[in-house]
């Protein structure tokens, strides 16, 4: 692997500087990924996927089939038991700022008293690192993300006062504020009405048009259908049918 000079915040989280992408490497490459939880429960086994810039992969399957575990392993939240994950050619954690993770709404402590703007600003934390403070570029990125998700009028509202759909949009705004090149979105269209679902789909399409890659999960095949999307059906922790990877 080519050595690159570390960049980014002065004191990055995880103690590693930000690496540049490896030339020619795909946005995401996962090989033979296995994820196990305490009690020797295997959530994911032998999973693989490859996404280029501008491509959207959609993990489709029922609850408990391992979709979220795949995203968490790629995001560095869960340590894989086996397999390899490469993000822009680098190991997970070598370029945190290039990967934005959107969790499912119930995983967030919404009772914590912060405003929507403050939550979206958390998307800039990775760029600031330890002891960093928000600069004008960070504030600009936050305002831009609020506008893209239609939350500018709710920016000063406490996150605990948001509806389910607004919470979903706030999490997406935070991921967008990170200005990353790989978005990992866990059920981004859940709890949204049709108008907001279309609005979020439009934002995802914009992100793809800007040469970023997206890997998202959903229960519903209908939500997965989009121009150029790679649908990856999952069952019992593995790709349901290796031949079923359909580019639409």
């Amino acid at each position, binding site marked *: 692997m080519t050595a690159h000079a570390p960049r980014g915040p002065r004191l990055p989280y*995880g103690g590693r500087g930000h690496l540049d992408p490896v030339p020619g490497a795909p946005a995401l490459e996962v090989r033979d990924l296995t994820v196990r939880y305490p009690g020797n429960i295997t959530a994911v086994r032998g999973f693989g996927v490859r996404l280029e810039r501008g491509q959207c992969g959609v993990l489709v399957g029922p609850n408990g089939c391992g979709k979220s575990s795949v995203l968490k392993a790629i995001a560095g939240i869960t340590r894989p038991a086996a397999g390899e994950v490469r993000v822009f050619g680098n190991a997970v954690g070598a370029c945190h700022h290039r990967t934005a993770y959107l969790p499912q709404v119930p995983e967030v402590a919404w009772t914590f008293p912060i405003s929507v703007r403050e939550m979206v600003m958390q998307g800039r934390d990775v760029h600031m690192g330890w002891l960093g403070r928000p600069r004008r570029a960070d504030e600009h990125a936050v305002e831009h993300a609020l506008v893209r998700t239609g939350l500018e009028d709710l920016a000063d509202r406490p996150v605990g006062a948001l509806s389910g759909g607004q919470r979903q949009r706030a999490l997406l705004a935070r991921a967008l504020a990170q200005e990353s090149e790989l978005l990992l979105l866990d059920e981004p269209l859940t709890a949204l009405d049709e108008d907001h679902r279309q609005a979020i789909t439009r934002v995802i399409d914009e992100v793809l048009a800007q040469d970023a890659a997206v890997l998202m999960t959903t229960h519903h095949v209908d939500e997965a259908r989009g121009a150029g999307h790679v649908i990856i059906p999952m069952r019992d922790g593995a790709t349901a049918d290796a031949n079923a990877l359909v580019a639409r």
Partner: protein
Amino acid sequence: MSWLTEPLSYGFMRTGLLAAVLVSISCAAVGTHVVARRMSFLGDALAHTMLPGIVIAFLLGASLLGGALVAAVVTVLIIAAITRGGRVQEDAAIGVAFTGMFALGVMLLSTTNSFRDFTHILFGNILGVGDGDLVVLGIIAGAVLITLLVFRRELEVTAVDPGYARSFGLRPDRVRLGLLLLLAPTIVAGIQAVGVLLTTGLLIVPAAGAFLVTRRFRITMLVSMLIGVGASAAGVLISYHAGVSTGATIALCTCVGFCICMGIAALRGVLATTTSSEVLE
């Protein structure tokens, strides 16, 4: 007016009042994070589990603060060991550590044959604070406030969404451990004021009240500190005139502060309901 000024004509009362204010500031500031993270039980338990460390330090003639810190770290390690593997929930593990450590403390206490020497640990002795203690309490309060300010973003994001924080390299478990290590000297300061048994009064109660009437974390912390300082000042003065335990009076005053916050929150709720009904009509 003399009700306020007369007690303060004594040096030990002025020192006690200043100490109570410093202790309530550090306890309320850390307590806001403890309550926000739903760690109130852990905060209360830590205050109790420090007892064996304090007693051993006393018997060895060592620093009580050092003894309390060691006991706090041992407690945290015990809880981590019990919960490892995910078969025991954290609240149950806290209950086990709490019982074991506090029982050990009481047992050690009973071997000293000088139980009365420890009443200030159990119930506090804010009026017995010396100038040296005052300096230590001031350093603890300053260190707590500076640490919480410097690591504000990390504390907030790991409390709101630990998974997201982990995704960009932050270790929520280590941030939590850091908060617990900050909690240890804070509780030691609280023990000085209201004792092991009532430290929750300064740590949890002001923050719990502040959360009822505020919607921004920074404001919550400020209101929590105001409740703590107000209750401490009122507790010191009321206990002087009533001739009752200062620590218990301070703890009771924090509960009064909490009740006032509950009243304000309820009143707001009634007003909001009335307003929305009028709008609907």
